[in-house]
């Protein structure tokens, strides 16, 4: 894979290499954050010095279906020893799917000194780099966060309905079977969280993992991403784009690629996603 700087990205600084991370594991101004789908993984071994942020227990409100508010974010930042000046670097399993999700939530609180380690756990592992099983602990910090601002990067149900009604752009990043509505449930387990199968009318189907190189989890270069999203699927980068999946995790990976690697400025992640749209009374779906 070519160096990140040579891949033609609009904001290449948002990705950092495994080499960069290896050189900064002891830098007090840098906090490496692991976020995984499999929450057991971090404890089996992680990048030395990395802390664990779990999207379920750390980033989500435990009572409302929503993200933590300012107080919760401040407490989390204090716990992992991060100040507003700390550079945070996310990485994780599943080709950084959950890392991008955590990155996205951090952007709701305006923590812009944030990067993703290209390739995530997979690349770090394949390169035979050091793992640590020590539970990293840092002195508590004081972090004063702004109120969560959903407007720039997140889109909620009512506005999604408006975008759909005016024929706006949607990118459905789930599997082709979920998009087609043929996969709704597993045998003997009737409900995957939605009453109806299918997709938001007009949505383009671009499974999230098509943005990465499966052998090492790195992002594809900009020309390949452009071919995928723009040439093959007709997405227009200067207009609103809504990315969605099942609960907004896979689509935050696509949001990252479109926003930072291609430089599209109006991409928002619909975290209500199919578990909301597929259950909403009165909204149209397409199969």
């Amino acid at each position: 894979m070519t160096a990140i700087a040579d891949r033609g990205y609009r904001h290449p600084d948002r990705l950092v290499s495994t080499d960069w991370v290896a050189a900064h594991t002891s830098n007090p101004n840098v906090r490496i954050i692991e976020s995984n789908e499999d929450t057991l993984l971090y404890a089996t071994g992680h990048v030395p010095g990395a802390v664990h942020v779990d999207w379920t227990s750390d980033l989500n409100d435990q009572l409302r279906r929503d993200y933590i508010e300012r107080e919760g974010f401040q407490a989390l930042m204090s716990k992992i020893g991060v100040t507003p000046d700390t550079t945070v670097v996310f990485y994780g399993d599943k080709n950084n799917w959950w890392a991008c999700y955590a990155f996205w939530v951090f952007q709701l609180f305006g923590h812009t000194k944030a990067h993703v380690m290209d390739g995530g756990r997979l690349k770090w592992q394949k390169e035979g780099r050091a793992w640590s099983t020590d539970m990293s602990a840092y002195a508590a910090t004081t972090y004063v966060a702004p109120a969560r601002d959903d407007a720039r990067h997140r889109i909620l149900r009512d506005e999604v309905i408006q975008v759909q009604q005016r024929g706006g752009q949607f990118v459905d990043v789930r599997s082709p079977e979920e998009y087609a509505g043929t996969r709704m449930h597993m045998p003997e387990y009737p409900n995957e969280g939605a009453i109806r199968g299918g997709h938001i009318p007009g949505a383009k189907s671009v499974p999230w993992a098509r943005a990465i190189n499966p052998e090492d989890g790195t992002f594809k270069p900009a020309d390949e991403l452009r071919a995928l999203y723009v040439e093959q699927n007709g997405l227009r980068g200067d207009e609103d784009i809504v990315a969605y999946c099942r609960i907004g995790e896979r689509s935050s990976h696509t949001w990252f690629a479109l926003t930072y690697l291609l430089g599209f400025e109006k991409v928002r992640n619909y975290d209500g996603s199919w578990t909301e749209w597929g259950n909403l009374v009165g909204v149209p779906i397409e199969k």
Partner: protein
Amino acid sequence: MPAYPERLQALLDVFAGVTDTHERTQLLIDFARRFKDVPPEVATRPFGAEHLVKHCESEAYAWAVPNADGTLKLHFAVENPSGVSAKALAAILDKALSGLPAAEIAKVDPEIVEKLFRQNISMGKGMGLMSMVLAVQALAKRHL
């Protein structure tokens, strides 16, 4: 309350007593470390699609092999090297259910996943793990 087989109930009791997240994580990881891949006399790669656990993203496979006394021995393979949770559950199912009659194994429901993993679970992963239990249930039913 479903009546679970004795060994499974004992394990569930152990997990029920662990309220600290870190301790629960370590307990599950200990099981994952004890995971044993399906032996070659039972199955070799590439494994048959009929043994693939559907909707488990860790690409897990399951087998139920009859013992001489008519009970079943469970075997698993987890192809995703990062599939720690799948390996932990496989090791737990083997420890708790191998050596039981098919009728006992067939009664075990996916509810145990929540009891074992609690906060160590996401919705998608939870369903993948539940389908491992369903796969074992289905295999056991074939031997009824």
